[in-house]
């Protein structure tokens, strides 16, 4: 029982992050609206950031900013810093994430202009209808149509 409690305390943070990640994943695959999909991608992305920062966190540590020299001069004052490297990685990832989000949103605006909709299923239907029309045009009239006597 103690063991189980220890496992939960050790891992609850990761589990909650995974739940958030899966909510984002669900939004991306189950919702047809393109803006909603991008929001789901953002949820997913933020949960990855949270995972990284969780790994770098140290209980009883302090932010990775060097404490003043007066405090450092004392030999017994071994300061415990939270890991700076995870923060550096995630700083880069946040900025790049916004760049990709804005590119995605620009694509949504273009799709809306061209198709008049931003629902995935409607766009697929329109594409398929267009493909079918193209195939019919290339193939020319079918034998039945010629037999019936109106060639186009």
């Amino acid at each position: 029982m103690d063991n189980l409690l220890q496992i939960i305390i050790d891992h609850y943070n990761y589990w909650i992050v995974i739940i958030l990640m899966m909510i984002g994943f669900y939004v991306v695959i189950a919702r047809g609206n393109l803006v909603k999909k991008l929001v789901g991608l953002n949820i997913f992305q933020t949960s990855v950031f949270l995972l990284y920062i969780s790994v770098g966190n140290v209980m009883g540590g302090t932010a990775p900013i060097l404490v003043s020299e007066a405090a450092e001069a004392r030999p017994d004052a071994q300061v415990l810093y939270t890991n700076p490297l995870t923060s550096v990685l995630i700083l880069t990832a946040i900025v790049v994430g916004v760049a990709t989000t804005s590119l995605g949103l620009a694509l949504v605006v273009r799709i809306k202009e061209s198709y008049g909709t931003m629902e995935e299923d409607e766009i697929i239907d329109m594409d398929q209808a267009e493909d079918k029309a193209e195939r019919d045009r290339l193939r020319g009239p079918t034998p039945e149509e010629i037999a019936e006597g109106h060639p186009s």
Partner: protein
Amino acid sequence: MTLVIDVFLFLFLMITAVAMARMNSLFGVVMMSGIYSLLSAALFMVMDAPDVAFTEAAVGAGISTVLMLGTLALVGRVQKPALRRHHFAALGIVIVTGIALAYGTYDLPAFGDADNPVQTSTVTERYVDVSGREIGIPNIVTSVLASYRGYDTLGETVVVFTAAVAVLVLLGRARRRGVTGEERESDLQ
């Protein structure tokens, strides 16, 4: 105390995320995503990563929300209600993936463990010990980001620049010609 705040913020995050998944009004979804970013910024602060918290609050809660609102102004804010038929397959995939990932966490070090391999690696120790003397900036994150890994930051700037150019190309073209999809189709016929 930190633990309690941590758990509460995570709970709020989950509630916000579920609300976003269920909502049909896109304006509401965008507003909720701003709240979500702000909550995660608070969580970064609790987990001792102030630099990430500032960036998330400014970029995630600020710029992202503004960009999404701008998009909604162009594309409209109504979403067709979600289709029922997708749901079970999607839910199944999500649950299986989630369980696989949760199984993977057993190999991760315990949360907040000071002996965790990330923490005891020589790279981390070197940055913590020497960066203050070498660079002269108390903030280790800044030293690493701007000096030790300055070329990475330059690369990041290139990515942002490329995205900005792509957005301008995508949006600028249609604006200049003033052509919408239907008009172009009628041109072709």
